């Protein structure tokens, strides 16, 4: 350090700040700042284990000892700099200038190492271990301890994906503090005392956390390791590439570590605006789907003679696809495009442009899930184009909002990082969280939230009730506070009138409404115009000025774009099933995610010509005429828009695998059809999209205005079905991950005690939920649902509601106890 401040230049101390000296350097720090952080700002690194900027200070490891002088008098003993806050006139000496501090730190290190095993060669942390590094930097060269070390049996599984090696633990309590403070799942605790003190599993509570992987990452030693990554590689043979999670709409920053062309693990990246330093277990552990043995690598064409798919060259496949699509477009009533909700913005843009330019249709939709016309209006009027820059709702705003209302949105299951923010906000006592839902789910508890119960489908009526009902006056009042937010989830599309009610509520209270889809690509596809009523940049299909802009940018003849909004997913499938559509171009869509899987399968079979762009075999590829393989997110570059509308750009992690992104495949396919998309690479697609810029048209989309229907009833012998996706479920992006799957929440059927009694269902025993399509049998569990309602997970284990029941949130189902079988 050569740039010591000159003695004469007095430091100005602003209001709320103090002046102190660290290692002879004068520094001004805000009141309440921890010494260790102030030192960090000066570039002085004090060794530490337990200290973590996002966790409450604990002072557990004592590695950060420094010498402190207050008011000219030295404190009797060295102090922990991670728990002591700055004070006026303090004089701090770290290990660099104080032999006392240095000796104290060495002593602590020696104590920590007494029982630490010397198994660095077989420890996953070896090579990236704070204990290793700091022992080298601040420890003694040799140990004076020659007795036998305390040992514990080697790793005990805390869950199927986290292993605990107690010998290595330095009892810093980062993991226990993370789970109780950040995640709110106290699954791991400090047990025993003295030399036997150890970390263990919280007694009698089943291990349950969607965020357990973070404890592995923040453990400063190798005490917590990942079962999936265990022994797979050492830090020095990993190449780390910054990436963005492809799973949900939070858009977390990640770091992908890979070795010899294979992804070995993913870690949370740091982004204070988005995920801070955390990611959920799905984002961390679910990545092997991309290397599954059945991954499609070669194009396939259906053989005219045998009727079977056979591998072909790209040239042949593209020619066959182009010919088939052109024929369906010109002679058989047109082609519909189902893009799927997992695309990057660039790929989504290519789908939208392909539909409009090569297929000359507005029949394009990214929504591979139940949807509604009301949703389209809502998206066009209040969501498209919003971003942090344009004043949209952000993670940070959630943190400072006086109140947040979650409507048809289960934050922990659908966007876990939103959940962490809500919990953080609520934990500080600043934010009141309300959940308009059916039962007190774990997320309600962990966000210190209030449940505003309603029957499924009764959400709009419940919102209207907020205005008048005295019981909910508190919620209404809180939401009227400036900066309040209403979050709407994907299942709102299954409840008629809900989007309209949300907008009315937003207007009445002044709260901002934000839409949080579940899939990573939905928000991007919306802004890229992959909807029947929208062109890129939120331009409406019905708006002449907007169309003209797009026609000009795309080099089309004036009037080439249809002014007629196209069909949405259901209508496309309906038309195909009725033989009105000659062809389908399907991206990553799983028919079993759709409102009516049977209709979807029939449509795909009926459609004269089907082209499927897929990563792995699916119900669509089985029935397609041409299958074109595309690249998973690790093998391409691009960007997602997260729910905030924030652009989350990422580069290629695994280069040169030969896999092509969707935009490239569509570009070539378009060329075969004599149309130019200019989306050869994601960068080209991006540039092409950016050229469009913002629209000059001043026409605004009309918000939906559906009157709130009265809360539905299920009639005499039926019940209403409430359901949503669980974070870890049967989703195909979680395939090949047995360790992750082991931490999924057990699927159960939840219902109120009164409903159980009415239908003769006994808690803990099997109950069958059925429609005329089929039935699902699960264990019944009592919960505080409204009467006449049953809750099942949407796609967990045997509970595959769309596939088995063809039913979703708000449907009427029948309920009966399952006669107890011989041994089940």
């Amino acid at each position, binding site marked *: 350090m050569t740039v010591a401040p000159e003695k004469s230049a007095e430091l100005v101390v602003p209001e709320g700040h103090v002046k102190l000296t660290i290692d002879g350097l004068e520094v001004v720090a805000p009141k309440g700042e921890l010494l260790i952080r102030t030192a960090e700002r000066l570039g002085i690194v004090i060794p530490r284990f337990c200290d973590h900027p996002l966790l409450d200070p604990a002072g557990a490891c004592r590695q950060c000892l420094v010498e402190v002088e207050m008011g000219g008098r030295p404190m009797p003993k060295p102090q922990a700099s991670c728990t002591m806050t700055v004070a006026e006139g303090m004089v701090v000496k770290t290990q660099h200038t104080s032999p006392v501090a240095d000796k104290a730190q060495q002593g602590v290190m020696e104590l920590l190492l007494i029982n630490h095993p010397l198994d660095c060669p*077989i420890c996953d942390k070896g*090579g990236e271990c704070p204990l290793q590094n700091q022992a080298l930097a601040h420890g003694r060269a040799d140990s004076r301890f020659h007795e036998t070390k305390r040992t514990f049996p*080697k*790793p005990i599984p805390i869950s199927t994906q986290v292993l605990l090696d107690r010998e290595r633990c330095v009892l810093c309590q980062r993991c226990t503090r993370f789970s109780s403070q950040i995640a709110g799942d106290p699954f791991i605790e400090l047990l025993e005392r003295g030399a036997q003190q150890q970390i263990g599993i919280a007694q009698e509570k089943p291990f349950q956390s969607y965020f357990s992987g973070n404890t592995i990452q923040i453990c400063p030693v190798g005490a917590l390791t990942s079962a999936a990554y265990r*022994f797979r590689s050492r830090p020095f043979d990993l190449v780390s590439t910054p990436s963005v999670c492809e799973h949900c709409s939070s858009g977390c920053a990640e770091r992908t570590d890979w070795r010899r062309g294979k992804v070995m693990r993913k870690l949370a990246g740091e982004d204070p605006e988005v995920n801070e330093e955390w990611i959920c277990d799905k984002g961390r552990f679910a990545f092997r789907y991309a290397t599954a043995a059945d991954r499609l690598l070669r194009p396939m064409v259906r053989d005219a003679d045998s009727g079977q798919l056979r591998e072909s060259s790209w040239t042949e496949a593209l020619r066959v696809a182009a010919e088939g699509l052109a024929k369906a477009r010109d002679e058989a009533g047109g082609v519909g495009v189902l893009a799927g909700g997992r695309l990057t913005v660039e790929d989504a843009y290519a789908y939208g442009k392909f539909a409009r330019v090569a297929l000359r249709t507005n029949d394009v939709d990214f929504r591979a899930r139940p949807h509604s016309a009301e949703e389209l209006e809502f998206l066009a009027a209040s969501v498209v184009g919003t971003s942090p820059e344009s004043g949209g709702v952000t993670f940070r705003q959630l943190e400072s909002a006086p109140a947040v209302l979650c409507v048809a949105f289960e934050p922990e299951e659908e966007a876990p990082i939103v959940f962490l923010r809500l919990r953080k906000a609520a934990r500080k006592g600043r934010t009141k969280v309300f959940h308009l839902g059916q039962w007190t789910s774990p997320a309600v508890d962990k966000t210190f939230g209030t449940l505003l119960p309603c029957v499924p489908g009764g959400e709009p009526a419940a919102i209207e009730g907020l205005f008048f009902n005295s019981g909910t006056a508190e919620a209404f009042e809180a939401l009227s506070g400036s900066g309040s937010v209403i979050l709407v989830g994907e299942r709102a599309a299954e409840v008629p009138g809900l989007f309209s009610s949300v907008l009315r509520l937003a207007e009445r209270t002044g709260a901002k409404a934000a839409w949080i889809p579940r899939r990573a690509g939905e928000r991007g596809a919306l802004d890229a115009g992959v909807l029947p009523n929208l062109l890129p940049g939120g331009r409406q299909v019905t708006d002449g000025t907007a169309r003209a802009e797009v026609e000009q940018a795309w080099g089309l003849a004036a009037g080439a774009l249809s002014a007629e909004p196209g069909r949405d997913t259901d209508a496309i499938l309906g038309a195909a099933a009725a033989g009105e559509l000659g062809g389908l171009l399907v991206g990553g869509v799983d028919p079993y995610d759709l409102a009516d899987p049977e209709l979807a399968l029939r449509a795909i079979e009926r459609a004269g010509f089907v082209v499927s762009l897929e990563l792995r075999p699916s119900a669509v590829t089985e029935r397609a005429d041409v299958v074109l393989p595309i690249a998973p997110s690790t093998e391409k570059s691009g960007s997602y828009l997260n729910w905030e509308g924030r652009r989350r750009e990422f580069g290629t992690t695994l280069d040169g695998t030969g896999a092509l992104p969707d935009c490239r495949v569509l570009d070539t396919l378009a060329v075969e059809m004599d149309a130019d998309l200019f989306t050869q690479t994601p960068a080209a697609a991006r540039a092409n999209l950016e050229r469009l810029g913002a629209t000059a048209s001043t026409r605004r989309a009309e918000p939906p205005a559906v009157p709130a229907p009265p809360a539905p009833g299920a009639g005499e012998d039926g019940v209403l079905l409430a359901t949503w996706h669980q974070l870890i479920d049967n989703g195909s992006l979680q395939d090949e991950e047995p360790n992750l799957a082991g931490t999924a929440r057990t699927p159960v059927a939840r219902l109120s005690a009164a409903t159980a009694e009415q239908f003769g269902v006994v808690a803990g025993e099997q109950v069958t939920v059925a429609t005329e399509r089929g039935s699902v049998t699960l264990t019944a569990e009592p919960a505080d649902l409204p009467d006449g309602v049953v809750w099942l997970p949407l796609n967990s284990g045997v509970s595959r509601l769309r596939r088995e029941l063809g039913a979703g949130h708000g449907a009427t189902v029948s309920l009966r106890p399952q006669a107890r079988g011989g041994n089940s």
Partner: protein
Amino acid sequence: MGVFDPLKGFGVTFSTMFKKVVTEQYPEDYRPTAARYHGRHQLNRHPDGLEKCVGCELCAWACPADAIFVEGGDNTEDARFSPGERYGADYQINYLRCIGCGLCIEACPTRSLTMTNFYELADDDRQRLIFTKEDLLAPLLPGMEQPPHAMRLGENEQDYYVNGPELARKAGEVAQ
């Protein structure tokens, strides 16, 4: 040039005939190397046949020529290849790259990797010069058993490591 110079030259040639020959008639005459010659590597075994390699990759880390590739694996109850939790699931040395420096031997924490005196490492196929774990593992001596199998020696881990060799020797004597 002097008159006798050609003769001097012949003199040198002639006198050499009575000196000891340094040329070796390899391969007919195969001479042993110096005892600590850095020849081909070997992955050693514990006395019961379990592998000593724990797949820690420290050899690969130490290698200045990047000739070694290792990938670790989990020992399970049903398939144990080495004592402890971890074993070398994949182990390769590329002799096209190896410079025989022996740094890997120094790095090995379990004395699994040592070097033999074997030096006939030439081939006309590059692929064959990448030695895999099967090529490098020490042969099974009497009393050793092909892994995977459980730890056979001693009451517990301590015993296995500390007294294993002794126990194996005793077991061998009894058998004879």
